[in-house]
Structure formats: structure tokens, C-alpha cells
């Protein structure tokens, strides 16, 4: 009887563990060979019955129509691929492996290194750049030069444009496309490419934004440092853009941290250059991330934040 009880206890625990492991971003669960699979299955089904204890909701005809309308449309390009099916084993999140730094928007081309998987259009690699659409013909040309010049000036000199124009994302992307198609300056084209790709990524699929507010000023910066982290669906892909940070003092470096339920998880160091935004993006983040922090640490790797807290973002804004 004691042995039976142990087997049953194991089966219950394994069913519970499998339930936890089925959550997005969870670590794969090692298989317990001692638990009877049939018993584990029974307990899994038992867990699946729990919602029947809830009062049933009214069937939503509108949601039904939306679902059927979406599946009837031609296949929509999904930038991040299919979502991992519950029950399959998600790959463990390794922050060091997934983090990659995209170059700050500057003169150099973005993401042109061999094998670089940085953002180019909707999840495509640098080897397959997005073909920008040709500029649409316009009925009269008198207002175009001024509009183009204004768009160029805004986009080149104001990255704050990104976060402030989120609501008008379609108009922005359209303007960027047109300006990019018309521009012949390689530096401007590179700048546009980066802005357009980032704008597409953050406004096309991002669901939340975490404004990063300065906790403590560093150096003699007259402008307060600030930033924003865009987070995409399923709490996975994210993009960070920080502005106003002074380069770190000698012997120190800025460090990014994911705030999770288990504490701070290192996101690696951040390179900050004078008068240039610091950017970072990755395809995933640690499980349970609920905020972001930038600290000023001594040079070298860090497992825990020990230095000055410079920027903090804990209050997400839905997009």
C-alpha cells in the first residue's frame, strides 16, 4: 500500500510539474521514469476538468466571427513563426545565447555581418532583405519636396519619433518607405532601414511598452536619460532603445537586467556612445520578466546588480 501511495504521489506531482512546464518560457521538465504514465495521464485529465467548476461564459458570437474571418484570409506572414504548442518541450531560455546587439543607428549598414540574424523586415535575415515598395505616384508634385524634407529631418534627428508616433504607425511606415525609396544618400538609407525595421517590429507586433525612467543621473548630462522597451506577444521578442545616457566612466560599464520573479537576470552589458542611442533586441526573454533595469557596474561580468541603478522600467503600457 505504501508503494502504491508513493506511485500515486509521484504521478500527481508529475502531472502538476507538467502543468507548470507547459507555460510559455518554462524550463523543460525532466521525465520521471518512476511515475506510471497512465496514472499521470489520469491526473492530467483531472487538471483539465478543473475549469468546468467555473460558471460558463456566454458564447461570444463576435469573437467567433473574428476567428473565422482571420482563418479565411490568405496566410498572413507571421514574423516570429508558430507559437510553441503546449505540451511540447520549449527550449530553455539562455539569456547569453539569445541576446544580440544591433548596431546603434549610425553610418554603417545594419545587420550585414555574415550569419547575423538582426532585424531586417519581418523576421527575415540580412541575407534576404525586404524589398521596399516603389514610391506611389502622386497626383501633383508641388508639395512632395517639402514633405520629404520634413520627413527626412524628423527621422534622422529624432529617435523620439519612434515612441511618440506609435499610434500613427501605418502613416510613419508609409512615409519611411517613400522617403527610403527616394533617398540616394547611403547614410540616410541605412538610417532609414534601421528605423523602418525597428518601427515595423515594435509597432507591428509589439503589445507592450516599458518606459525607462532615469533613477540617478550619471555624469554631467543635461538631458535626462530615458528609454523604452517594446515587448511582443507571448512575452518573447523585445527591443530596447535608450537615449541620453552619458558614456560610462572609465572602468565601468552599463548593464541590462531583466526583473523576474526570481530576481534580476543579466542581460549583458550595454555599449553607450556619446549622443547616440543604445539599442538591443532579442527573440526571447527570461521567464517571468516583469521589468527592466540598467545599472552602472564595474567592468566585467556580473550575476547580480551591484552598482548604481540608472534606469528602471516596471510599469508596462499596453499598445
Amino acid at each position, binding site marked *: 500500500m505504501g508503494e502504491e501511495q508513493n506511485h*500515486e*504521489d509521484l504521478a*500527481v*506531482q508529475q*502531472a*502538476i510539474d507538467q*502543468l*507548470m512546464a*507547459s*507555460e*510559455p*518560457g518554462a524550463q523543460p521538465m525532466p521525465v520521471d521514469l518512476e511515475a506510471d504514465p497512465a496514472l499521470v*495521464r*489520469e*491526473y*492530467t*485529465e*483531472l*487538471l*483539465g*476538468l*478543473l*475549469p*468546468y*467548476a*467555473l*460558471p*460558463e*461564459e*456566454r*458564447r*461570444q458570437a463576435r*469573437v*467567433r466571427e*473574428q*476567428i*473565422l474571418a*482571420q*482563418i*479565411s484570409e490568405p496566410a498572413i506572414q507571421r514574423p516570429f513563426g*508558430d*507559437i510553441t*504548442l*503546449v*505540451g*511540447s518541450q520549449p527550449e530553455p531560455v539562455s539569456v547569453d545565447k539569445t541576446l544580440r546587439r544591433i548596431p546603434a543607428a549610425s553610418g554603417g549598414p545594419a545587420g550585414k555581418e555574415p550569419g547575423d540574424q538582426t532585424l531586417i523586415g519581418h523576421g527575415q535575415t540580412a541575407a534576404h532583405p525586404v524589398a521596399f515598395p516603389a514610391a506611389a505616384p502622386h497626383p501633383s508634385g508641388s508639395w512632395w519636396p517639402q514633405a520629404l524634407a520634413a520627413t527626412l529631418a524628423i527621422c534622422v534627428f529624432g529617435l523620439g519619433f519612434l515612441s511618440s508616433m506609435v499610434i500613427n504607425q501605418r502613416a510613419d511606415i508609409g512615409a519611411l518607405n517613400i522617403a527610403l525609396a527616394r533617398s540616394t544618400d547611403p547614410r540616410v538609407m541605412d538610417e532609414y532601414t534601421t528605423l523602418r525595421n525597428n518601427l515595423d517590429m515594435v509597432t507591428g507586433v509589439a*503589445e*507592450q511598452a516599458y518606459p525607462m525612467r532615469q533613477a540617478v543621473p550619471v555624469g554631467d548630462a543635461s538631458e535626462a536619460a530615458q528609454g523604452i522597451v517594446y*515587448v511582443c506577444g*507571448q*512575452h518573447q521578442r523585445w527591443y530596447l532603445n535608450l537615449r541620453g545616457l552619458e558614456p560610462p566612466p572609465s572602468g565601468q560599464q552599463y548593464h541590462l537586467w531583466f526583473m523576474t*520573479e526570481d530576481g534580476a537576470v543579466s542581460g549583458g552589458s550595454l555599449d553607450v556612445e556619446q549622443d547616440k542611442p543604445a539599442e538591443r533586441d532579442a527573440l526571447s526573454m527570461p521567464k*517571468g520578466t*516583469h521589468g527592466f533595469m540598467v545599472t552602472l557596474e564595474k567592468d566585467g561580468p556580473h550575476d547580480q546588480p551591484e552598482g548604481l541603478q540608472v534606469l528602471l522600467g*516596471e510599469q*508596462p503600457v*499596453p499598445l
Partner: protein
Amino acid sequence: MSQDSERIDPAAEEPTDKDLVRRVAERDESALAELYDRFSGLLLALARRVLGDSSDAEEVLQEVFLQVWNQAGRYDGKRSSVSTWLVLITRSRSIDRLRSRQVKDRTLSALQQEKPDRHTSPEGLGSVLHQQRRQRLRREMEELPAEQRQVLELAFFRGMTQSEIATSTGIPLGTVKTRTLLAMKKLRKALRAQVQELL
């Protein structure tokens, strides 16, 4: 089974849940619609229970069925019933959204304030089955000791690990595990027939 050729056995007319999933994998939109009609009330209740917000719950419901549409071919009937499969997908998405919204405390107050209008879905064989399950589950959950029901609900509807439950409630981890075990075993014994239906 009756030999009367004029008598129609409702069970013979209704496709099984697995039949529907198989048809969804073959891109049969009507099968997805039927799955929605059978399970949306249950899944929406689950999402709403986790999120405490109707509009978020509806969005999760939409995501769930789009995922079903895209991944029906991967459903493995040996691992779980269709009902459990859908429940676990919904739970997973709901908890993920809950965490990203940082609304655990707001969820509780929202649940206390909202009193949604309920009504049962139209009659049908699947609906009757669900109604029976619902009545049974409700009764058995109510008969669980409150402390056992609490740990089970925190784990399932709030996505809390046993360690997190122990920390947030101040109950020793061993006690949390014991209560979970007792609750699950009690429910399994009481709901044996309902579980067997799903195997």
C-alpha cells in the same frame, strides 16, 4: 443499441472532439466553428478567471482558436483529450498574459467587482455532457476542504508554483504539497467516471 431504424441515436450524429480536431487539421473551417461552439464558454470562463478582465479573456480566446487552427495537426490524442488540450493552451496563454500585465492584485479586485451575466449555451449532446461535468466538478470542488481548494486554485488559475504558493500564503512548502496531493487524490476518486470519459 436499438434496432429501430427510425430512431436516430444523437451520439451517432455528433462528431467526436477528436474528429473535429482532425478535420481542423485538414483546414475544415466548419470543424473549427463547431469546436468553438462546444468549448468557447468553458475556455472563456477559464481565461476570465485567470485574467479578471473580459476583453483580455476574449483576446486570449481568439488566440487559442487561431493556435488550434494552425497547430491542429500536432495534437496527439495519446497525450490528452481535446478538452484538456484546449484547457491547457488557454491556461498557458492566460497566465502568460497575466504575468506580462502585472495585474495579479488587480485581478482579485476585478473578480470581486464584476458579476458577469451568465446563460447556458443551446442544447446539444456536447452541451449536455459539459453541463453534467460542470455540475459534478462544482460539487466536488465545493466539497474539498477550503485549504486544499485554495492551493489547487492558486496553482491552476494563478500559475503559481508550489514554492510561490508557500511564500505568498505563509504555509510551509511541505504542507502545500500535501494539500495538493490530498485534493488531487480526492478529486480523482470522486470524478473517476468523468476522467475515464476523457481517456
